């Protein structure tokens, strides 16, 4: 009987494709929008992700994220170093500066000062050049997405001179970094030269990056640092989370994406609900005949279930493939750099599809179940 149900469905090409479109469109909208949302808010943690060696971040108690921080006195570094379980601790500076571009435009950039000796604080990989170029004087390394911003015409960034807060700087490398939420250009330099680029206030130690000794967990070391120094210490995970939460709390992003996802859901229900009801209504005489001949209601429910399941499976697959294709197609666009689809998202859209089909299927099937077998003689 079930293959008959499938034939009934595929035999009505118009409604079949309509249903596939409805489910596929909903899946695409929900999956794609949630993917963009998650990847965007995760950029609130890009500062943390771009300094992969740091297991604990130490900061002034009022600091909230890598970009919203209050400087500490230089003595903080030694105090942190003296805490048990701290394997190493290095200074880390994050500040804003202005760059005068060649065409005379002003561009706000982020300055990241990394440890002079170890270069801890730099992103893991370089897109071009070697990390050691930073040892040359007046050198900066630019993040790869930033180059498209400072050098939109495609000219090479390497070797370019910048006027950075009235100081001269030369770009000698390009870092393979995760863009920040605002896609601000980031210039990495050694801590000591960062102090030159950023006009002087007394305290210019934004963070202390810490590696923990063997046998210690970042959590326990962070707790110990907090207890002994009075500073705030967060593990890499906690601090990344804080950056993400900051974006969620301080932008309209969750609402906007939430509305779109909800619309995807509603549109899915509308299209699928209408089409499915129409489909079953068109076949009501056949279903009535089957009921008279001797097909039980339970079997009829199975038949409609198989129809819904088939539409759901194919439509869902199309929607997910569409999202993957979308992310792939825009992969070279700097905005989408590093975008990935967390496994939870296809699962969520699958649940949405199941709910859409359950709601619309239940509404549509009522007309079939309520059909009296006697109606076939009318």
């Amino acid at each position, binding site marked *: 009987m079930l293959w*008959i149900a499938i034939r009934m469905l595929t035999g009505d090409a118009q409604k079949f494709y309509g249903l596939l479109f409805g489910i596929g469109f909903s899946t695409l909208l929900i999956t794609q929008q949630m993917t963009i949302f998650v990847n965007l808010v995760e950029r609130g943690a890009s500062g943390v992700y771009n300094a992969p060696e740091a297991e604990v971040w130490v900061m002034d108690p009022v600091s909230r994220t890598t970009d919203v921080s209050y400087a500490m006195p230089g003595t903080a570094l030694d105090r942190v170093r003296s805490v048990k379980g701290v394997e190493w601790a290095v200074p880390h500076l994050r500040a804003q500066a202005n760059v005068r571009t060649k065409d005379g435009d002003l561009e706000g950039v982020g300055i990241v000062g990394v440890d002079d000796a170890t270069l801890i604080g730099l992103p893991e990989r370089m897109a071009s050049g070697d990390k050691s170029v930073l040892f040359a004087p007046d050198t900066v390394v630019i993040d790869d997405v930033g180059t498209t911003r400072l050098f939109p015409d495609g000219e090479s960034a390497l070797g370019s001179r910048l006027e950075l807060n009235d100081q001269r700087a030369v770009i000698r490398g390009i870092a393979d970094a995760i863009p920040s939420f605002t896609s601000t250009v980031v210039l990495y330099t050694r801590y000591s030269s960062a102090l030159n680029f950023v006009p002087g206030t007394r305290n210019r130690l934004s963070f202390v990056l810490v590696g923990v000794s063997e046998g210690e967990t970042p959590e326990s070391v962070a707790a110990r640092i907090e207890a002994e120094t009075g500073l705030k210490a967060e593990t890499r995970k906690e601090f990344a989370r804080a950056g993400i939460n900051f974006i969620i709390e301080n932008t309209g992003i969750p609402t906007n994406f939430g509305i779109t996802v909800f619309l995807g859901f509603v549109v899915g229900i509308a299209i699928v609900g209408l089409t499915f009801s129409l489909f079953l209504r068109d076949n009501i005489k*056949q279903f009535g005949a*089957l009921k008279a*001949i*001797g097909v039980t209601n339970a079997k009829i429910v199975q038949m409609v279930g198989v129809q819904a399941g088939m539409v759901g499976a194919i439509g869902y697959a199309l929607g997910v493939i569409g999202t993957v294709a979308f992310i792939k197609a825009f992969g070279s666009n700097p905005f989408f750099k590093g975008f990935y689809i967390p496994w939870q998202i296809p699962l969520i859209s699958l649940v949405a599809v199941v709910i859409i089909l359950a709601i619309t299927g239940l509404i549509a099937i009522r007309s079939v179940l309520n059909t009296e077998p*006697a109606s*076939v003689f009318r």
Partner: protein
Amino acid sequence: MDTKAIGGCAPEAAICARGISRDFEAGQTTIRVLHGIDTDIRSGEMTYVVGESGSGKTTLISIMCGILWPTEGEVKVFGTDIYKLSDTELVKFRLNNIGFIFQQYNLIPSIDVASNAAVPLIAQGVPREEARERAKVLLEKLNIGNQADKLPRQLSGGQQQRVAIARALVHEPRLVVCDEPTAALDASSGRRVMDLLREVAVAPDRACIIVTHDNRIFDLADRIIVLEDGRVTHDGKEMPDDH
């Protein structure tokens, strides 16, 4: 022996209907369309139910074949008191014992003719290919064996009705009911379909009830029951003279 008089059923009766009444709600009022009908249908005969439009023919045969509950009365089909069965048992009973021929054919448009004719077997759980083979044998008998792989819409009305007949007989039911089987056909194809139906449907152990308006085919009946306003007014081999 007059079994009706004492309310009993002849053991050989295919259908034994006793005191059948049926009411329909029409807004505030209740209309009684069948008034205490007693009748037996015998196997090996083609029984016609005739009468004016609205006289209750469809209602009566719907009750006799287990798709419409009577308001009063009981129906035994081959000895089974069908309205005492549970819903599921009744559905099973219909599947195994009754073949239906509808005026509108109600074929499934997206499966081919052989599969359509095989639907009752498939519903019984017979494997698809075996069911189709058995259906093809019957289609052959009905002279549309060469249409077996076509879709219903590629067939003429008369051919589609023959597919519907095949579907009604494929599982060899002991009772076949048809409501106006020729109403959608022109006179000559209607006559041909009825000739065929008589040939394939009537068997010693099978009862066949046909509701019809079509006085051109009255001569094919073994027995004619006339309904008027929900009451049986004639029951015999021939039509009464005043019709």
